């Protein structure tokens, strides 16, 4: 009987691993393998990779990601300092608001910059860089600011008593101390900008394409499967290299300084700091507020003054879609809910497998790979891999949630794995000794202890699924569109009415996203403190 008990345990664990592995095998490895198999057919695409056009695109991809990262750091550091080191009224609110741009869908932000910038500046490098900064400032503020807030201020006091001036203290103490956080934030920002799609496809115009956008063009316009496969390979390798370099950078970033409790580190602004604080907050308010305000303004700016015409248009049939645009709200919510469910199940199982097993690093990498494989690659892979019966899933209702879940699952795993690893195994043993069978242990111990991270993961997964564009654009059908896809359809079509309708849909999507994330945050943070 004990043997049997052991056997079911092993079986259970096998099922735990089998579900995420099967999911990844069918919906990640198979589509990607199909791209490479059909596109390259065993021959290495030297001709495509060293083509002049390819080199140009690679150069632009790297260049814009580097510039975006540098600008994001420059814009984010003052705000990181303000929220981490200075106590002022409304600091909590500022910290919460900073995250909003990060969860906004790329399509919304790109449309906001279209609404903000004069026509001559709407397409090109400037709007791309601005939009990237807009998104990623949150990363710098959260990662660097979070670290900065916990640096023990007594070190700076000690340096001051030893005669170091404020600028000297910043150079010799603050910067070196922040190096790990700066490395982490830069790497993350660089990765996001390197794989950026929605922003560039909307704001890039014909002359500016990143690898990701070029894969999209090759897949949907030139139908050059070989070139698309070659560039996908390049993209996969590049992202792998970025992740490897960034993790070794972070590891080498040097000795960590003693961390203090957060509240201790922030103190009231000194006189000379006050103007800097005010300026920082003002710039942030304008930088974040203006594009969104322009977007909202555009959505009301009809030909005959301010009005609700574009919102009313959401209820009317349109040749851009086979349903009235407002139905996209419904489909977006339904798809995102289903995607969140799938991402949570797959992600939680994978996280549980990592947390419980030693030596399952290969699985760890496998789940993280979709992060590197771009969304466009996934969507394209789905379309060409699932195009023949019995695997013709292109018009299945569930295909959109599945691809969205695939994009969101790595984030779920990233959040849940440490949380699950953090559970003291003796709590489970204590429960077992007190008479709880294994399933009950999972329900009574593991579940409540990961509920809060689970809620955070659910909120993030929902926001990602709501805003997912690169993969969904291949798969959402005209009679069941998601909001980002509907927005893109209207943006692509000329005329003030189409642009206004896109803006109105963006405002709706923004509201839905903020609401969803807010609710998830509320649901999970009300729980007791542990």
């Amino acid at each position, binding site marked *: *009987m*004990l043997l049997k008990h052991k056997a079911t345990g092993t079986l259970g664990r096998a099922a735990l691993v089998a579900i995420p592995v099967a999911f990844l095998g069918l919906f990640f490895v198979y589509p990607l393998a199909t791209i490479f198999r059909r596109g390259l057919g065993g021959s290495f695409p030297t001709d495509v990779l060293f083509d002049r056009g390819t080199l140009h695109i690679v150069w632009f991809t790297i260049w814009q990601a580097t510039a975006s990262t540098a600008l994001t750091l420059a814009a984010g550091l003052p705000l990181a300092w303000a929220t981490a080191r200075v106590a002022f009224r409304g600091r909590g609110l500022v910290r919460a608001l900073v995250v909003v741009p990060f969860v906004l869908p790329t399509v919304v932000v790109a449309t906001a910059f279209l609404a903000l910038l004069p026509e001559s500046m709407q397409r090109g490098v400037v709007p791309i860089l601005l939009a990237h900064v807009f998104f990623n400032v949150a990363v710098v503020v959260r990662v660097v600011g979070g670290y900065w807030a916990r640096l023990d201020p007594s070190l700076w006091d000690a340096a001051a008593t030893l005669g170091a001036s404020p600028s000297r203290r910043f150079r010799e103490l603050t910067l070196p101390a922040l190096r790990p956080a700066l490395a982490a934030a830069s790497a993350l920002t660089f990765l996001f900008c390197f794989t950026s799609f929605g922003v560039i496809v909307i704001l890039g115009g014909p002359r500016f394409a990143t690898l990701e956008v070029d894969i999209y063009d090759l897949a949907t316009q030139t139908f050059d499967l070989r070139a698309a496969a070659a560039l996908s390979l390049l993209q996969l390798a590049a992202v792998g290299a970025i992740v490897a370099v960034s993790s070794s950078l972070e590891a080498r970033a040097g000795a960590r300084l003693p961390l203090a409790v957060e509240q201790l580190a922030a103190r009231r602004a000194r006189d000379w700091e006050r103007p800097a604080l005010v300026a920082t907050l003002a710039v942030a308010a304008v930088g974040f507020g203006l594009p969104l305000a322009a977007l909202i303004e555009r959505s009301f700016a009809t030909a005959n003054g301010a009005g609700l015409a574009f919102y009313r248009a959401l209820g009317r049939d349109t040749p851009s879609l086979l349903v009235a645009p407002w139905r996209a709200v419904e489909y977006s919510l339904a798809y995102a809910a289903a995607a969140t469910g799938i991402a949570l199940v797959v992600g939680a199982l994978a996280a549980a497998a990592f947390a419980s097993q030693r030596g399952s690093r290969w699985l760890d990498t496998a789940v993280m790979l979709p992060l590197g494989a771009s969304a466009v690659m996934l969507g394209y892979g789905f379309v060409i891999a699932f195009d023949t019966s019995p695997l013709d899933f292109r018009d299945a209702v569930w295909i959109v949630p599945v691809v969205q879940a695939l994009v969101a699952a790595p984030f779920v795993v990233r959040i849940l794995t440490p949380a699950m690893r953090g559970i003291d195994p003796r709590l489970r*043993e204590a429960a077992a*000794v007190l*008479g709880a*069978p294994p399933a009950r242990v999972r329900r009574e111990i593991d579940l409540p*202890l990961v509920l809060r991270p689970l809620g955070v993961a659910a909120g993030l997964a929902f926001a990602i699924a709501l805003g997912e564009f690169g993969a969904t654009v291949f798969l959402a059908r005209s009679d069941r569109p998601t909001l980002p896809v509907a927005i893109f359809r209207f943006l692509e079509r000329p005329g003030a009415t189409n642009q206004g309708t896109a803006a109105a849909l963006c405002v709706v999507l923004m509201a839905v996203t903020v609401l969803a994330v807010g609710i998830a945050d509320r649901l999970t943070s009300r729980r*007791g403190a542990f």
Partner: protein
Amino acid sequence: MLQVEEIRVAFDGAPALDGAAVEAETGETLSVLGPSGCGKTTLLRVIAGLQAPDSGRIVLDRDDLASIPVHQRGIGLMFQDNALFPHRDVAGNIAFGLRMNGLPHHEIAQRVRELLDLVGLPGAEKRAVQTLSGGEQQRVALARALAPKPRVLLLDEPLGSLDGPLRERLLSDLRELFAALQLTVVYVTHDAGEAFALGHAVAVMRAGKVVQKATSDELWRQPADDWVARFLGMRNIRENGDRCTVIPPEAVEITPGVGAVVVSTERRGAVVWLRVRLENGDELDSITTATNHPRAGDRVTVKVDETATIAVARWPG
């Protein structure tokens, strides 16, 4: 009666339990004493069912427990650092095992109240476990382990993290409680004082085996070998061949004179320990209750009462 029969457990080929065997009578408190790494915690985990043995049997009142999974064994276990559930309050922790047993709601509340009274924390039901002091957490953990009325209670160094006076008080509380409940208890510790204070019987473990099981008096009178003697704190041990002679410190008489010199003196409560060096370089401990004892550096004569010495086997390890 709890019987542990020839249990073997190996982790990655390294034996943690190497044929451990011991018995505890019903209602008896058995202390398992051994240095860290001797396998005593593994032994508890095998008894509780958290660790499957490679071979050997656990028999409780003639039932072989091998086929019974951990959650059905009815054995209580109190963990080294309590392992209280952080997401439940005091009552929630204590009620956990009762809920698993399917006790009705009102009976659970009643029993939780009784147990809190029993461990000396009346009215603490709604407190969060993080707000409890170390001693209070210990008591809640004990109440939680006792709540489902286990057939055997296992304790894994429960007082390890506590400081002096608190530890003494809990020790005596535990002794009274075990006596009152007539419970079969296995108490694991590396501290000989705790083992003697609680155990009707003490099992000494070394390298995955129980090397000796005896009452505390028997252990003092006849340790199984020189290693056990040393582990119990005996330092006057002479080796000759495969035998050793243990000289109890009270058998060493010191008078002012010649032949030896006092190296150090140390008062421990009512007695004073004197350490002397003989001419051949050997050192011996002696105890006295006198307050005008020799001081460090004094020259003394040492006389050993050979009739009080104990002959023991020599442990080759």
